[in-house]
């Protein structure tokens, strides 16, 4: 038995995992329309490389990664691009996102698929391949995998198969049904990162998956580790701690401690990409909750949720749907949103399954939240500071180490929506930070402009002076009298001085006279606009100056 290093806290909500594992996974039917958001991953959204009217093949790249932290998206089926427009997306912000709308032709014609020998291409090439094929973390964070692969000589590669959230079983089913392929994916990740040790963490409430993985791992040296069922063991930091005893430094990366962590479904897609030449265009999605036939489905990215949920036959008293688990999931306000790479589970909610929580009461400092917090935070203090908008204090008490797992809210006897307070505080702080940076930038620009103007003025003056001196010298030379030449020196100096004075006067006059040109006889609207712009400029200048003043006074206080 491997020694485990339990993380602090954690909770154990009712699992509700049996419901959706009674039947094996099935393939969801091809919908007529697919809605493929260009932002299905952390970082920049992909840039569309098709236009409305284009015919595309299944697996064809339709959006290409924009920058390093970005990933490509592909056509999940063959058909015609009917539009590229803003559509509702299953994102916590609830804002619509640019999406490619694909009308499927039902033929499922593939692009030419090419397997690659990952041992034959260099690591950078393999990472590029993963970016091109849209490989992102399927555990929910959808961070581009090629970025995470960019480290070598790992001590431990952790495969996250804990699947700790209630209801969700897609990773469980994946391992039960496709363990051998998962293991092939692990080989690729291990090779790419030069990992000496591979640990596969699975919560002990999934004995079938554990058994299947153990068989598939025979002879590989990979170790399947059954970890206690305790939410949030599937959070990367907590799982790494649990398996290796090492803590990812705050604000740092696992690779700093020689560890990297990939979700089990992600390594499975690495296998499909490398050994089958298939980009990431589908995933297993658990349909469960208040449904007659809860089950896992292999679902094409872009499938509208409203169509998908019908497969599991939601019960009549269904009140709504949740994407993700009940601890961290997002309620879906609009069922036209598509399944994306991040969608692991769709839960039909009902009053019986999710009774409304009691009214929030004041915090009584019982510290159950602190006992439950897997990040060793003091949630009651963070709540106090967030509510009071004392963001500085909240940061001192390590607000940004909060992983928003929801354990604190889960145990709170006062039923305070604690996580919401932390999200609020985090976003407020981020907003302040942005404003501060903008002000800094404005100040820097302003200072540079002043510096440049001063420099230009000096240069001009110097030029004029040089010219005047030259002219005076010429005049002196022209007089042709050697005796007066000495006096001429004085004259020259005086002339130079006068010329400089004149130049300065001229510059001053010019500066005073600088007026926008071609502004006579403008229509009143245009003049108003100009005035408005001038005013904005003045304001910007003022803000910049104020920020300088504030900074100065800050420094004064600091001293």
């Amino acid at each position, binding site marked *: 038995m491997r020694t485990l290093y339990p993380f*602090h806290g954690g*909770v154990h*909500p*009712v699992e509700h995992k049996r419901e959706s594992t009674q039947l094996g996974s099935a393939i969801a039917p091809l919908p007529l329309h697919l809605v493929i958001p260009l932002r299905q991953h952390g970082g920049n959204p992909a840039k569309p490389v098709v236009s409305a009217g284009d015919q595309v093949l299944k697996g064809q790249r339709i959006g290409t990664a924009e920058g390093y932290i970005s990933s490509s998206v592909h056509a999940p089926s063959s058909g015609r691009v009917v539009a590229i427009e803003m559509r509702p997306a299953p994102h*916590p*912000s*609830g804002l619509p996102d640019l999406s490619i709308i694909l009308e499927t032709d039902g033929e499922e014609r593939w692009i030419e698929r090419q397997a690659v020998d990952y041992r034959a291409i260099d690591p950078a090439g393999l990472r590029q391949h993963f970016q091109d094929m849209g490989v992102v973390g399927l555990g929910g964070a959808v961070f581009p995998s090629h970025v995470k692969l960019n480290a070598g000589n790992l001590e431990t590669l952790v495969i996250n198969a804990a699947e700790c959230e*209630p209801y969700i079983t897609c990773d469980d089913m994946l391992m039960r049904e496709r363990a051998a392929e998962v293991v092939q994916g692990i080989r690729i990740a291990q090779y790419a990162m030069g990992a000496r040790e591979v640990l596969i963490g699975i919560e002990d409430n999934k004995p079938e998956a554990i058994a299947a993985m153990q068989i598939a791992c025979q002879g590989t040296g990979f170790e399947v580790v059954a970890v206690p069922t305790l939410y949030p063991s599937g959070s990367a*930091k907590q799982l790494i*701690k649990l398996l290796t005893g090492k*803590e*990812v*430094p*705050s*604000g*740092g990366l696992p690779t700093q401690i020689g560890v990297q962590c990939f979700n089990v479904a992600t390594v499975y897609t690495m296998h499909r990409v490398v050994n089958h030449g298939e980009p990431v265009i589908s995933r297993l999605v658990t349909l469960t909750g208040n449904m007659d036939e809860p089950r896992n489905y292999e679902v094409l990215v872009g499938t509208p949720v409203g169509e998908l949920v019908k497969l599991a036959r939601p019960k009549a008293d269904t009140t709504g749907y*949740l994407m*993700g688990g*009940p*601890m*961290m*999931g*997002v*309620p*879906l*306000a*609009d069922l036209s949103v598509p399944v994306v790479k991040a969608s692991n589970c769709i839960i039909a*909610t009902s009053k019986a399954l*999710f009774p409304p*929580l*009691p*009214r929030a*009461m*004041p915090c*009584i*400092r019982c*510290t*159950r939240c*602190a006992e439950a917090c*897997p*990040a*060793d*935070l*003091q949630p009651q*203090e963070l709540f106090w500071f967030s509510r009071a908008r004392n963001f500085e*204090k909240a940061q*001192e*008490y*390590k607000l940004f*180490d909060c992983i928003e797992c*929801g354990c604190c*809210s*889960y*145990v*709170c*006897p*006062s*039923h305070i929506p604690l996580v*919401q307070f932390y*999200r609020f505080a985090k976003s407020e702080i981020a907003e302040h930070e942005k404003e501060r940076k903008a002000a800094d930038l404005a100040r820097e620009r302003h200072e540079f402009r002043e510096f440049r103007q001063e420099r230009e003025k000096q240069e001009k003056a110097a030029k004029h002076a040089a010219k005047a001196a030259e002219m005076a010298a010429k005049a002196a030379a022209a007089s042709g009298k050697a005796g007066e030449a000495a006096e001429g020196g004085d004259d020259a100096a005086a002339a130079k001085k006068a010329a400089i004075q004149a130049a300065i006067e001229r510059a001053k006059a010019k500066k005073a006279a600088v007026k926008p040109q071609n502004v006579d006889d403008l229509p009143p609207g245009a003049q108003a606009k100009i005035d408005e712009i001038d005013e904005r400029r003045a304001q910007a200048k003022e803000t910049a100056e104020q920020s300088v003043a504030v900074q100065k006074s800050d420094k004064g206080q600091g001293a």
Partner: protein
Amino acid sequence: MSINSPLVAEKSTVNIIMLKVLAALLPAIAVYVYFFGPAILVSITLASATALATEAAVLYLRRYPLRVYLLDGSALVTAWLLALSIPPLAPWWLVVVGTAFAILVAKHLYGGLGNNLFNPAMVGFAALMISFPAHMTHWPAPDVLAQSHWNFAQQMDFMFGGALPAGAKLDAVTMATPLDTLKTQLHLDRTVTEIQSGSIFSILSGKGTEIIALFYLLGGLFLWQQRIISWHIPLSFLGAMFATAGVLHLVDPGQYASPLFHIFAGGTMLGAFFIATDYVTSPTTLLGKLIFGAGIGISAYIIRVFGGYPDGVAFAVLFLNSAVPLIDAYTQPRVFGHAGKWFRGGKE
């Protein structure tokens, strides 16, 4: 789209916690009645009614939803703890004034549930102790020792009308507490052993009171088993008092009573398990709880033995209550992924 995950939660609520605290007090109250008669039930009822009425009035003025907050049970906990801290034969208005003061001043003037710096019951107790010291010393003698026995009606006449039964003396039913006896007799240059041979003393501490203390201990263990309280405050409280008393007892057993006597005397057990553990007015960090408990244990002993009052639990609790923000700020535990052992609010 609103983000309101998590959508599931444990069943626990504030009123369940408060009701469990009340339930944990019941066995001790039953024993109280057995040794000292039913008067305590009347003062508990009186305190409860006063607490709820005051709470309702303040909630109404503050435009808080009445039902939810009246049912949270916190006012009842305050009422019961205060009633158990003052002599059961005290006049009715003493209970009413103390409870009303606790709810109005100590709780709501500080912002109500969750916002008070000081334990409301102990603030009520301290206010009464300072304002009406004479009434606060009329502790009943255990039934087995009382020279005369009043029936319930006579007790009520005394509580509500201040009327003594014909020919009866107050001294006949009241008695100095063991701690009081110890204190006054030590001034008369008697040794602890001599004093403790008196009739009010028993194996552990005082006759009757030691059994009630034992039941407070059992109730406290129930709360610990139910995970309502952690062991940190009670154990450090009792441990620190035991250790302090133990050292002095070893040095001079004639002058200082045994540590066991001290932890079963006066308000120690009630204080350790029910009063010092009040969530709102105690530290939130584990190290902080240990410091807080130990601080109360030592302070209570010092007040009790060297101070002017026979018992010191209430004042020790209030004293340490005022230190809670400081203790919390200096004992923040290490956060996941950070170096060091713990940090002082903000600085590592």
